[in-house]
């Protein structure tokens, strides 16, 4: 028992220190970052928007797409995956007015999901690059241009990834916490991994890829629920790089209800479990820079949550007066310091993103006890779902994230 507890404490702290180092590198990278310079020739880009029943968000999305500034050839394809609502009408209205916006109905097929739709989009286009935006995204006018510049300048780059900001941050406590989580784990750590190990990871949206690379890798894996993470591992294993461009920003809607959030994150976690299983069978995922990526998946999506559970159990048992095994480590203060380190990372993110306010600091202070704990439930749910689907030998169906009605922008 003693050995188990000591090993847990040591591993937990190694992880925390690792994440702290990545956070500090991320802060360093953000402070020194300069926009990639202009290039002499801008290659052609196909912008792909997979869409399924998106009538409440697609108008704002297309309005933002029409405002994109790009000096090369840019074609925007809305890939309609059997929408039953007014998505088609709205997109067609835009397509009639703007020559570069195209409405593409995707033929029925299996398995359902974003990967299959994107593969179809790739099959009907022939641009040098393609960029993916989710149907609720509103990129800033120069977002794409910056991605292309970075992809063209960095040697051996497969493309580039940008920053995803939360559009509905002020909606409620949940959206505020998601926004804070994105600031740390999506951008700051992404920047830190790039600065430390030359590793970028695709975010599923605001991501640019070279067509030749995706063709070389055989397109998207249609069974992957976290298609972005899965493709990142294959890209890295093939030796490609993905530069991170924090100033290329898109604004995305995040789940406004706990139910929608759990559904979305269970899919992400299940997708990561699929990726873990795939990585365990494929040793190319454990060589060179890919080793760090695979390890990080293993640690973030499995070990860290498991340790969070163990540390919670110890804390509850020790304050309840239950006799704990005597070990030569001050468990309570170690537990407390995990909270302090976690909170310090979040605080650094809001300072770097210049959105310090008493309300945000308050949310940061309670996130460890609230938001972070949900991930234990999420891991349990996704493990059950994944194991059940394996036992029944069935493919898990793609669950689209629920959209929420926002204000239509002018």
């Amino acid at each position, binding site marked *: 028992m003693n050995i188990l507890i000591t090993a847990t404490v040591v591993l937990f702290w190694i992880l925390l220190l690792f994440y702290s180092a990545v956070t500090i590198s991320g802060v360093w990278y953000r402070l020194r970052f300069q926009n990639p310079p202009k290039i002499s020739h801008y290659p052609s880009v196909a912008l792909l928007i997979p869409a399924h029943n998106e009538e409440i968000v697609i108008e704002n999305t297309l309005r933002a797409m029409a405002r994109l500034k790009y000096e090369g050839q840019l074609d925007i394809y809305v890939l309609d995956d059997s929408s039953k609502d007014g998505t088609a009408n709205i997109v067609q209205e835009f397509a009639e007015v703007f020559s570069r916006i195209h409405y593409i109905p995707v033929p029925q097929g299996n398995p359902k999901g974003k990967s299959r739709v994107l593969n179809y989009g790739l099959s009907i286009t022939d641009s040098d690059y393609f960029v993916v935006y989710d149907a609720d995204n509103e990129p800033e006018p120069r977002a794409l241009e910056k991605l292309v510049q970075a992809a063209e300048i960095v040697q051996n780059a497969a493309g580039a990834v940008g920053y995803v900001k939360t559009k509905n941050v002020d909606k409620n406590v949940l959206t505020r916490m998601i926004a804070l989580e994105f600031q740390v784990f999506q951008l700051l750590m992404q920047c830190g991994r790039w600065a430390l190990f030359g590793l970028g990871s695709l975010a599923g949206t605001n991501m640019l890829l070279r067509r030749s690379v995706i063709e070389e890798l055989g397109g998207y894996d249609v069974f992957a629920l976290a298609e972005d993470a899965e493709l990142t591992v294959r890209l890295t294993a093939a030796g490609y790089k993905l530069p991170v461009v924090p100033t290329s920003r898109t604004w995305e809607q995040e789940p406004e209800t706990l139910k929608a959030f759990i559904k979305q994150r269970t899919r992400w976690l299940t997708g990561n479990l699929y990726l873990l299983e795939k990585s365990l069978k494929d040793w190319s995922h454990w060589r060179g820079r890919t080793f760090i990526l695979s390890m990080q998946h293993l640690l973030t999506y499995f070990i860290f949550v498991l340790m969070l559970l163990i540390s919670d159990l110890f804390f509850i048992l*020790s304050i309840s007066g239950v006799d704990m095994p005597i070990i*030569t*480590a*001050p*468990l*309570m*203060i*170690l537990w*407390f*310091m995990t909270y*302090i*380190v976690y909170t*310090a990372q979040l*605080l*650094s993110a809001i*300072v770097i993103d210049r959105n*310090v306010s*008493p309300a945000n*600091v308050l949310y940061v202070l309670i996130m460890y006890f609230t938001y972070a704990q949900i991930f234990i439930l999420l891991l349990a749910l996704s493990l059950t779902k994944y194991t059940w689907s394996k036992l029944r030998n069935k493919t898990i169906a793609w669950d689209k994230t629920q959209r929420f009605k926002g204000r239509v922008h002018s």
Partner: protein
Amino acid sequence: MKLGILILLVLGFGWALFSRVLPFSTEVLIVAGISILFMTIIHERYVFLYGISIILSYGAFLTIYAFFFTQRPDLELMYVYSHLLFTGFILSFWLLLNQIKQIGYEASELSRQVQLLQKYHGETDILTENEFSEQAQWVLKTTERRQEEAWFVEIMINSKNKRTEQNIKESLERATLSTIRPKFDLATSTRHSIYLLLKDIDEDGVRLMLEQYRDKVKQELNLLDSPYTVRKEQVSNLNELSRALGKAI
């Protein structure tokens, strides 16, 4: 409201640090006091860095201390309380500084915007520098298209008496406004100079205008020596005006 709550928080945490008997309370109080001074003095961009470093350092110290000298849960709990109070104090003071600085930035941004929107200086209704530049663009564009002449005049104030300098300047501004053609010529002023842009006029016209100006100034001021000197040059486009203004400034 926010500031009030933050001040209360700083005072509350400070009082708790002072009054509670916790491990290392004297040392913590000294560090908290020094931190207040240090965080107030240093550049804004390092305030958070200092705050978070001191919080993490105190945490690291307590962890190491607990590892080697204490493994009693009741004492560990005291360390946690001590760290929480210290963290609360530092964070609320950092937030207070942050809010005060934000209010400062908002105020200077607002005054910058007000300056941009203002057309006239308060005392004499002479144009603001920004408005002068804006209107000069229109004036010079029309002058250029119609192939007319425009003249830039700089009136430099020579007063050596600091006490009366401001009033001399205002008198010169009033004389300027009553000499130039209203709604036709432009005039602005800086601390030591008055600038004019006279359109559709030749060199003789400028000389006549300056003579009238001299007479008006003489009527108002009892000075034997002229309180100003004049520099004039013809301008036909914006670049020439910028150059003339550049020389003047």
